[in-house]
């Protein structure tokens, strides 16, 4: 498949140039031409007033694919604790497996056999568990080598992992080795009824657009999934299933972890688990302003402080607190955005919060379009009142 310009029809009007996100269209000798930068996004197809741009399908597009078996979820652990995103993946994986009429397996490297059993209760039919010493800590080469070998042996149809530092680091190696597609940081997954292909939706261009990605000709279809956007699976204490032991042998390690340093900023670490987040942006004005947010967080139980990238870039608060496209995705019960304009890159990180409160003195700020409750006011006037009022209610 490729995109072609019919030179006879093309009037050289240049309308298509602006439609291309990849700068892939140039005008040569008065005619539009698609260059090698074309990513097949099809944006240009509909814009040509002459209908000169079309999509050409090749016969080889219908390459035969090997039908895989089963949906796999990579159950990430660090220090023996299974990451929260695993349970969300099991929820999504269960849904996909049911739609395909196949079963769901979890792949656990490290942790204990009781953790493996717990994954069955969260919806997996089967858990492949490796308990070797070598997989307790994360190394790209071991994780990638072992998972690739397992995929070769069992042939799953779909492999999902969390879009965490670990998942996003080693899964690309697996995809490269298996000669198959990997879609990064998906925010929604579905099955195309007709083709049975996995439809993978993800943000691109800093969250300004969403794209649906397919991997039609190779298996498995692989994706990393953004934490905290999908619902957890159902927990059933009575559920059982099969646990298959696997071992990691003969994998070469050339890059090894020699030390792990935890930077415990209690508030930040818990950002993704917090029930309440008080977030500040450029409008907070400085470290002093952030002290006020910390004061408010202190007055509420289980509250953490978050920040926009502008506030982080100003150096008012460490990167760990950043919420958004290039920071953390959060979905607390309550998100209070103070002095944040609501750029799309910020919104993608927090808009699935249950209740959003926006405090901003500009009534036109886009943050109000996602806010459950909007307060148009100066935050330096409102926040002290709010802190005082909340202390009173808590005091009672």
């Amino acid at each position, binding site marked *: 498949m490729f995109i072609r310009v019919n030179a006879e029809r093309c009037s050289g009007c240049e309308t298509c140039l602006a439609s291309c996100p990849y700068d892939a269209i140039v005008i040569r000798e008065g005619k539009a031409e698609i260059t090698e930068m074309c990513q097949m996004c099809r944006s240009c197809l509909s814009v040509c007033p002459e209908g000169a741009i079309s999509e050409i399908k090749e016969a080889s597009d219908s390459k035969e694919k090997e039908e895989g078996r089963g949906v796999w979820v990579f159950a990430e652990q660090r220090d023996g604790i299974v990451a929260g995103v695993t349970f969300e993946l099991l929820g999504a994986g269960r849904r996909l497996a049911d739609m395909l009429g196949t079963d769901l397996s979890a792949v656990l490297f490290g942790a204990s056999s009781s953790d493996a059993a717990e994954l069955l209760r969260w919806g997996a039919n089967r858990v492949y568990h490796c308990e070797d010493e070598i997989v307790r800590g994360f190394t790209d080469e071991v994780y990638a080598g072992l998972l690739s070998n397992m995929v070769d042996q069992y042939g799953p149809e779909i492999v999902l992992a969390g879009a965490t530092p670990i998942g996003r680091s080693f899964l690309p190696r697996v995809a490269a080795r298996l000669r198959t597609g990997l879609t*990064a940081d998906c925010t929604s997954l579905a099955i195309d009824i007709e083709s049975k292909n996995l439809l993978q939706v993800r943000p691109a261009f800093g969250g300004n657009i969403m*794209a649906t990605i397919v991997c039609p000709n190779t298996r498995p279809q692989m994706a990393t999934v953004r934490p905290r956007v999908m619902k957890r699976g159902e927990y059933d204490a009575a559920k059982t299933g099969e646990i298959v032991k696997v071992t990691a042998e003969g994998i070469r390690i050339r890059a090894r972890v020699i030390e792990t340093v935890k930077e415990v900023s209690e508030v930040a670490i818990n950002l993704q688990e917090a029930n309440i987040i008080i977030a500040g942006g450029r409008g907070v004005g400085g470290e002093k302003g952030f002290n006020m947010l910390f004061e408010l967080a202190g007055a509420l139980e289980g509250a953490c402080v978050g920040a926009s990238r502008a506030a982080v870039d100003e150096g008012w608060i460490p990167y760990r607190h950043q919420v958004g496209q290039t920071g953390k995705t959060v979905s607390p019960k309550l998100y209070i955005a103070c002095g944040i304009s609501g750029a799309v890159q910020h919104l993608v990180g927090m808009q699935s919060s249950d209740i959003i409160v926006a405090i901003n003195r500009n009534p036109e700020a886009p943050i109000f379009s996602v806010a459950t409750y909007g307060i148009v006011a100066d935050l330096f006037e409102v926040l002290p009142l709010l802190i005082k009022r909340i202390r009173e209610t808590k005091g009672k």
Partner: protein
Amino acid sequence: MKIVVCVKQVPDTAEVRINPETNTLIRDGVPSIINPYDLHAIEAGLQLKEITGGRLTAVTMGPPQAETSLREAISMGVDEGVLLTDRAFAGSDTWATAYTLARAVEHLGADIVLCGKQAIDGDTAQVGPEMAEFLGVPHVAYVRKIQDVGEKGIVVQRLMDDGFDVVESSLPVLLTVVRELNTPRMPSLKGKMVAKKAVIRKLTLSDIGAEEDSVGLKGSPTQVRNIFAPEAKKDRKIIEGSNEEKVEALVHALMESKCL
């Protein structure tokens, strides 16, 4: 020591918007820039070069106009720019891009390959680690500090969610870098002069010995099916009144919904 830095020319995404009626991107007047993360990779390459006395080459895969990025890299102090350009590379996804870049790096030879953590147009962060697999070398992602480098190996800090790992690797190695690593230098006046005159080496499919079936659209396992604008929630409610009344109403509403 041979060091290669991979740079990508990207549209300045802060300015890209989608037209909700036609579902197409509005790109009028959006400037092309070097992917911001890659500026940090260039800076890391320059510092490594200064320590080890090596040679630093910048590689980009893209259309002829991506040459601008290479000249910009040279103006910062990079020794040479290599442009991978061939119609056969059209439509590459991360797999095919990584494959092509890896063949080029093999062709050039490298002890250390540097990439940005991710490119801001696609935000995939996959090309670096995929490339390492194709090259058959280890990689360390999210490097936030280079602690030590020698002939045989390197010690770096890898940024994680809960802190950082200190990782030791043999060479050759591929590193992807985050913004915390350094502050990219500005091009010098002399650098700009050098860049203007520099000869950019161009390499095609056959130059790097890549297989035609593995590059471009043919070599890409994934396809973009469609693009659309993100949707926003619309249950907005502005609380009116004096500041005291607003706070009172808010606290009341939050208590009602059991948030407090």
